[in-house]
């Protein structure tokens, strides 16, 4: 099934619940099947499927009025994490980046991502993981291009800060 894995990943990230993600995923494909005649030949099918899924998710949130509150993370520089690591260079070792990546499990990164607000998380993941362009993300999320840039930048900054906090707490 075309783009199924990527779409399911995105559904899981949006819902943060496996059963809800599965339901959203199936409904998105069902809608794509029913409205396939609206798909324009030559356009990006993956982007079209992601747009359907994201629209459905937003409709569900609106109907439930249970928009999940995320943990607020103060904004920081997009290089916040790297700057902090460089400050530790003399204490840690010659290569603080390597120490960081060795000690940072995937679970920690997923946890950090899940703490981002849904808007920031979606933008970061669509860009960094799924490899969509800014323009495609703007279409999928239904927001202007500038908003996409801003969300990716803020999302990365917040992610860095959360990962730095986790890194500091890691026993060495």
């Amino acid at each position, binding site marked *: 099934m075309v783009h199924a894995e990527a779409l399911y990943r995105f559904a899981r*990230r949006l819902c943060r619940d496996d059963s809800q993600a*599965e339901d959203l995923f*199936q409904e998105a494909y069902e809608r794509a099947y*029913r409205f396939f005649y609206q798909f324009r030949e030559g356009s990006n099918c993956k982007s079209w499927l992601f747009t359907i899924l994201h629209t459905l998710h937003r409709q569900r949130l609106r109907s439930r009025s249970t928009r999940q509150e995320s943990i607020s993370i103060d904004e920081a520089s997009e290089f916040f994490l790297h700057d902090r690591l460089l400050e530790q260079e003399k204490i840690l070792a010659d290569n603080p980046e390597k120490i960081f990546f060795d000690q940072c499990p995937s679970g920690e990164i997923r946890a950090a991502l899940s703490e981002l607000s849904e808007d920031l998380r979606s933008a970061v993941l669509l860009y960094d993981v799924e490899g969509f362009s800014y323009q495609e993300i703007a279409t999928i999320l239904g927001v202007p291009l500038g908003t996409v840039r801003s969300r990716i*930048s803020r999302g990365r900054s917040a992610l860095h800060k959360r990962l730095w906090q986790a890194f500091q707490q890691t026993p060495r």
Partner: protein
Amino acid sequence: MTSSDCQKLASRLLDPDPEVAEHLLGCVDCRRRAAFARSLAEKVRQAESEPSLPEGLTSRLVARLDRLPSPRRKSHSASLVGILALAAALAIAFFLWGRPQVDPLVADMVRHHEGCFHIQNTRAKAEQFRRWMVAHSDRELPIPARWPATLTPVDRRDCPVAEGARGPHLMYAGSSQGQVSLYVLPRADLQGIASLSQKPTAHRYNGYSVLVWEREGWLYGLVARVNEAELRGWVALRGELQVELAARALFRPIPGRFTVDGQVRNHTRALRPGSVGPRRGALPLRPAAL
């Protein structure tokens, strides 16, 4: 390109344009940052790509889709409905807007033309016209030159023609042409009107033919109850677009009418068309015998 420029956004380092790439070659600090940003993005990708599709999800999805009716296609019947709807919309549009739209400026000119000939000129209006001529050199006014010999000047006034715009109203009459008006309006006073072509454009309104054109900051309107071809014949064109310049004969004063000093005079000296006309600051006091 500085390190600060590169580091404003991590995405510039992740996906460097040629300028950033060139900077990276010579900057150790930015290369290190770029490497870290790439590694972190890769770590995020790995972390997020771990979960694959749950077992059985694909088959459950296929079963769910199988239960659905066939998806809608662009059928002929749908197309027919679309065509009928479009035809109905066009019919309504034709009913509502089928009649040619009248340019408001054209309508204003015609209405003014119909009314102004019934109003007697006054000294005040004659003085206004004189002042207008003093303020505007006739050299600025490219007036159509090929004027029918049977068409004679009746009057000239300074009239408010369209909203916010006033200018000379040159009035003529001919045995076969009836009453004819030539309006000259300063373009700057007609802000709400889109630019017009330099080439005279014909309009039809209320039984009148109207030619309008624009040139060098002036807007011209020629109104007469004749057919369009005849009206066009009065406006001589040189080459493609140029309207022939100042036919001064058009400004010849009119016998038996008010002149600049408000006196009715008997005019005796004939003016040759194209040779003599109003000078800046003064109208000729001795018009031609027509």
